């Protein structure tokens, strides 16, 4: 496996791709990664059916996730070179046309394991286990109502995610892709009695579906051009094998092969919430916090990055593909950061920060440092999980209170120290504080951007990094630092968010809204052992991940996503980038400190001054209302489509049904009515009509016949 290293963008990956050609058959016990979540799904389903009101489903799910993590680690240990593990055949059509042309469409349930897969599966199952443990306590108040349903959702998610990552062909990837979308629909809509949650779930699924359409079109185009959907197979007709052999160029037509990268990109942006299709992620915060942490921060949203990383050779098909990815990533990062600054709800802020960090990752992929992107994914998974989980703990403790203006001085409250300090570590990493894990991974991407001579994009990202640092510490200073003061959420003891959660059991009347729930705790209750333990472990993970740079580099370079050899890339990175990034991070923190700790009044004063001045009034209002993007979509796409649908329905009911069908139906009756007066009952009139008929017949025969003879023979000939 030669390590040919060329810096030039195009040919670098060829060497890595030929590694895919020598694929060996992997161990069949790896299949358990897939079957375990399914088994836990079924068991949770049984628990739900039998109405088991204990924490059993939680232990089943945590157990299955842990075992699959162990299996992944075992697989990682025994990994020598890319492995192919066929499990079950799914699509297996082959045919032969009359003139001997044979064709086939094969897409089975099979794994393609290379280092990239292992990297992704490790942190997916690892974080999955930890967050499932966290959720076991967090969802405790729901034990009687939806506990089993929640953990069934988590198992479905894990099954789908492992399908996606371990897939050996694009169709199984598509299965995982939609499965993950469905799992997020299931879990966002967990509090199904809340219309906003149901709407958010529906919105998530449909926006994902739009992205999936892009992916589907990409898959079909790939099949159309390359005749296969598999990455690599024994007969050497896998996608990467064809790409590596370069034999595809002359066969396929021009535009269809060029369009593939852009369609895959659309799919990736749909799933990883980038510019056109990011609107669903902030609403996805309606789901319980563990879901936000696991799915909407760490694992699912990175599926887009995984797709582009895995499909890097395909992305090369069009020269402008990767730069577009980079620019869209950059713009999303900037946009999300600006919105994140102006929000007051902790989970919403973290959601926008996730969108922004994902933008960074896509920039990484765009500028051909998949290592940088993967490293950022790895580190981001940890510190974003910490931030979400701490946010969840706060919400859990303060009965659903999430508004940063209503809580402050968490650090000084008894029992909340762990939460405060772990949140600090998370914030430091997110802000890219020098020597934190975020700093190293973000620096990789920033350096690479400047290395590939894209200064404009670089400075934009630096500005975004500044904003990131500001809004991260805006939250920390507001919530954790400052004088101790808090307002309880009106959520009664237990779980749920800042709203009334109807506990309408079957047959049991839902409590009336207005009566104050009797047992609201006046004192916020700090998280207990399970939550604290998980917080500490993940924070340790976040800290360790700073030093895992080289480990990630090794993983990425030995997979289809390999681009540059880590060593060389460093020389070309301009030295001044890390220093600049570090100072920017510190500057952001200082500004946040000034506005949100030193003089909180000045922040409000600044905002008031901005609103007063007509010239700048638009800025704060626009940022708080998320640049009116949702309203824009609603107005530009949903409403016109709704009106068009109504028009179609009216058209269908009145024009096609009433006018044509019933019209034609009424025709005979109308013609019948026009003949009716003939039957007026008078004997003589009948006689006249009869005589007239006879006369006409004779006239026709005598006069017309000689002229019509040839035509009539033609018309009536034929027979006999």
């Amino acid at each position, binding site marked *: 496996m030669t390590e040919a290293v060329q810096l030039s963008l195009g040919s670098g990956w060829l060497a890595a791709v030929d590694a895919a050609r020598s694929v060996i058959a992997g161990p069949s016990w790896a299949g358990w990664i897939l079957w375990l979540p399914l088994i836990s799904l079924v068991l949770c389903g049984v628990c739900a059916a039998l109405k088991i009101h204990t924490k059993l489903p939680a232990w089943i799910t945590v157990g299955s996730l842990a075992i699959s993590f162990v299996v992944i680690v075992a697989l990682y240990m025994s990994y020598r070179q890319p492995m192919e593990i066929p499990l*079950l*055949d*799914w*699509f*297996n*059509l*082959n*045919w*032969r*046309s*009359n*003139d001997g*042309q*044979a*064709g086939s*469409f094969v897409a089975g349930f099979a794994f393609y394991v290379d280092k990239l897969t292992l990297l992704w599966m490790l942190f997916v199952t690892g974080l999955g286990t930890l967050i499932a443990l966290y959720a076991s306590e967090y969802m405790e108040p729901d034990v009687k109502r939806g506990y089993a349903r929640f953990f069934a959702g988590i198992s479905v998610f894990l099954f789908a995610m492992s399908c996606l990552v371990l897939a050996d062909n694009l*169709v199984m990837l*598509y*299965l995982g892709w*939609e*499965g993950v979308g*469905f799992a997020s629909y299931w879990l966002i*809509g967990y509090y*199904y*009695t809340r*219309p906003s949650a*149901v709407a958010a*779930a*529906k919105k998530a*699924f*449909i926006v994902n*579906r*739009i992205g999936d*359409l892009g992916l*589907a*079109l990409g898959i*079909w*185009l790939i*099949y*159309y051009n390359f*005749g296969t959907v598999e990455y690599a197979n024994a007969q050497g007709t896998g996608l990467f094998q064809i790409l590596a052999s370069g034999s595809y160029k002359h066969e396929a037509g021009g535009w269809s092969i060029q369009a593939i990268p852009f369609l895959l990109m659309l799919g990736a942006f749909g799933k990883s919430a980038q510019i056109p299709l990011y609107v669903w992620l902030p609403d996805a915060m309606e789901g319980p916090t563990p879901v936000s942490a696991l799915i909407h921060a760490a694992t699912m949203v990175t599926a887009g990055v995984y797709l582009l990383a895995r499909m890097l050779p395909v992305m090369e098909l069009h020269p402008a593909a990767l730069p577009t990815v980079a620019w869209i990533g950059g713009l999303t990062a900037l946009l999300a950061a600006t919105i994140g600054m102006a929000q007051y709800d902790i989970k919403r802020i973290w959601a926008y920060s996730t969108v922004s960090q994902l933008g960074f990752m896509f920039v990484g992929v765009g500028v051909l440092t998949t290592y940088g992107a993967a490293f950022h994914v790895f580190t981001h998974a940890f510190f974003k999980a910490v931030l979400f989980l701490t946010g969840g703990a706060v919400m859990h403790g303060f009965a659903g209170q999430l508004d940063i203006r209503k809580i402050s001085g968490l650090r000084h409250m008894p029992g909340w120290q762990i939460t405060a300090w772990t949140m600090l570590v998370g914030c430091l990493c997110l802000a890219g504080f020098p020597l934190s894990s975020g700093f190293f991974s973000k620096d990789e991407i920033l350096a690479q951007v400047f290395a590939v001579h894209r200064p404009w994009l670089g400075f934009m990202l630096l500005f975004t990094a500044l904003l990131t640092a500001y809004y991260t510490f805006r939250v920390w200073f507001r919530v954790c630092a400052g004088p101790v003061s808090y307002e309880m959420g009106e959520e009664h003891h237990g779980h749920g968010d800042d709203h009334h959660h*109807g506990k*309408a059991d*079957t*047959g049991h*009347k*839902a409590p009336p809204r207005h009566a104050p729930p009797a047992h609201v705790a006046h004192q916020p209750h700090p998280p207990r052992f399970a939550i604290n333990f998980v917080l500490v472990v993940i924070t340790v993970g976040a800290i360790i991940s700073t030093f895992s740079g080289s480990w990630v580099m090794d993983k990425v370079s030995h997979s289809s996503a390999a681009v540059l050899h880590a060593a060389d890339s460093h020389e070309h990175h301009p030295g001044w980038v890390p220093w600049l990034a570090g100072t920017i991070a510190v500057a952001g923190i200082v500004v946040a400190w000034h506005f949100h700790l030193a003089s909180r009044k000045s922040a409000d004063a600044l905002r008031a001054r901005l609103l007063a001045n007509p010239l700048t009034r638009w800025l704060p209002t626009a940022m708080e209302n998320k640049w009116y993007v949702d309203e824009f979509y609603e107005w530009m796409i949903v409403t016109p*489509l*709704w009106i*068009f*649908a*109504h028009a*179609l*329905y009216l058209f*269908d009911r009145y024009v*096609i*049904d009433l006018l*044509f*069908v019933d019209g034609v*139906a009424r025709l005979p009756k109308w013609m019948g009515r026009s003949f009716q007066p003939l039957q007026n009952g008078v004997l003589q009139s009948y006689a006249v009509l009869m005589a007239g008929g006879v006369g006409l017949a004779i006239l026709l025969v005598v006069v017309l016949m000689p002229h019509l003879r040839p035509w009539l023979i033609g018309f009536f000939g034929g027979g006999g």
Partner: protein
Amino acid sequence: MTAALLLIVPLLGAAALVVAPARHAKWIALVASTIAFVLSIIMAVRFGPLWTSREFNQIGWVGLIDAFGIRLSLGADSVSMLLVLLTTMLMPLCIWGSFSSITQRLREYYGWMLVIETAMVGVFIARDLIFFYICFELTLVPMFFLIAIYGAENRARAAYKFFIYTFTGSLIALAGLLYIAWQYAKSRGYHWSFDIETLTTFATDMSATEQAWILLALLAGFAVKVPLFPLHTWLPLAHTEAPTAGSVVLAAVLLKLGTYGLYRFVIPMIPLAVVEYAPVIAVLAIIGILYAALICWVQNDMKKLVAYSSVSHLGFCVLGLFALNPLGVQGSVLYMLNHGLSTGALFFLVGMVYERYHTRDMDQMGGLCNRMPVWAFFMVFFVLSSVGLPGLNGFVGEFLCLIGAFTASADNASYPGVLGPWYAAVASVGMIFAAMYLLIMTGKVVWGPLKEPGGHGHAGASRAHGSTLPADLTLREIGVLTPLAILCIYIGVQPSPITTVLGPPIDRILGNYPETVERLAQPDLRPEHDVIQVSGIEQGEPAVSGHQHYSGGADG
């Protein structure tokens, strides 16, 4: 012999019903239809090698009406075998499902159900043109009575429109079919034969203009049944008025008669016309997909929504069929099965709500999962199956149809086609709309705070005073839905046994399409008036060549 028995058993059941007392009617019907199901399984098992052979299995024939040369011969290839299994499997479920919803005129109801089962099975295993047509029209009569007697408010109008619309279409199709039989008889010195096999081999040699007219006639008959875009307006009306089991049968099997007709008559018999007009039909199908999907979005009557959704779904089926390559056609046959299962189940579910709340208006109800969790589970399951979530059956059919249409471009190596990537791309937008309207319906009806029709969400006082059904599904109703769910999962996860079985007959039917497409692609070779020499088709008598004059062929 089992095929003839399969036809006779339901009829015997119907006859027994006339005599039996009303209260035993439902059990007799259930027993008869289960026996039929067992028979069809025996037939399937004994279908033996023919599942994978290219030949056609002549199951046996009864020279009953042999005056015209009609030999009432029965036969099946794996496609019709699968559709027979779908029918006989659905029938007991329909009968079992309508135990509680039908309370008066029981004997007639179950009698008509058994008669319609015979007719449907007859259509699928008919190898004789006239027997096919007899069964094809016979399905109208029981359906007419089911809608007209047991339907909802303006059932008479719906029944009338359903009957006359389809009756007119099928009469025009009869004229087309008779024209083919006549041309065949004329070329054989007036030895009439209505055997589908011989007519298929003969019809391919007819001139392009003749084939175009026949295509128009056959489309008039089958497109109404499918329902293809402009001819679909009878379906929503018929569905909203039909009783639950009636609309399950109508959606699950009767619509498949149209697509089966296209598969059995249009594709194999008139290749020249099909290749020439496939784009037109594909465009109609695509319009149908998007048009019906958008209309579903604005519906507030659940049954009408599901009805329009089957119009949209069958658009995919037709698109797959006219992709004219194995992927597309296998996809459309799979789609017929899957649509039967998932839409059939959806109608059951809507029927169950109707039995409890006597309304189908989505705005009046909400959050039923609080009141009926098991129903909610099945509802979400089957919604996802028809949305096409991978892993369930809907996805398999839809994906194959679209990939078939996608790769049916002129420069495809093995099977050049007349459609192309743009057709499939526009059609696949329908997948988004499908997700939209079905999830909006689920959102309104299943999720959200509890709101029961006729009274705000308190203890079901508002529930239908008359209905004795408990809030959630009874064991019987679960029994009806579970087999469908299991089948959905099985086909979704393991379509390969079905696709391998479908392979040979579809290869046989699509046999000479690549050649026809290539021939029609070059303009100079397009046949203007008479027929070009067509290479011998691999089975049956040698194709009669040179058709300037219809000389008597050396036909057995």
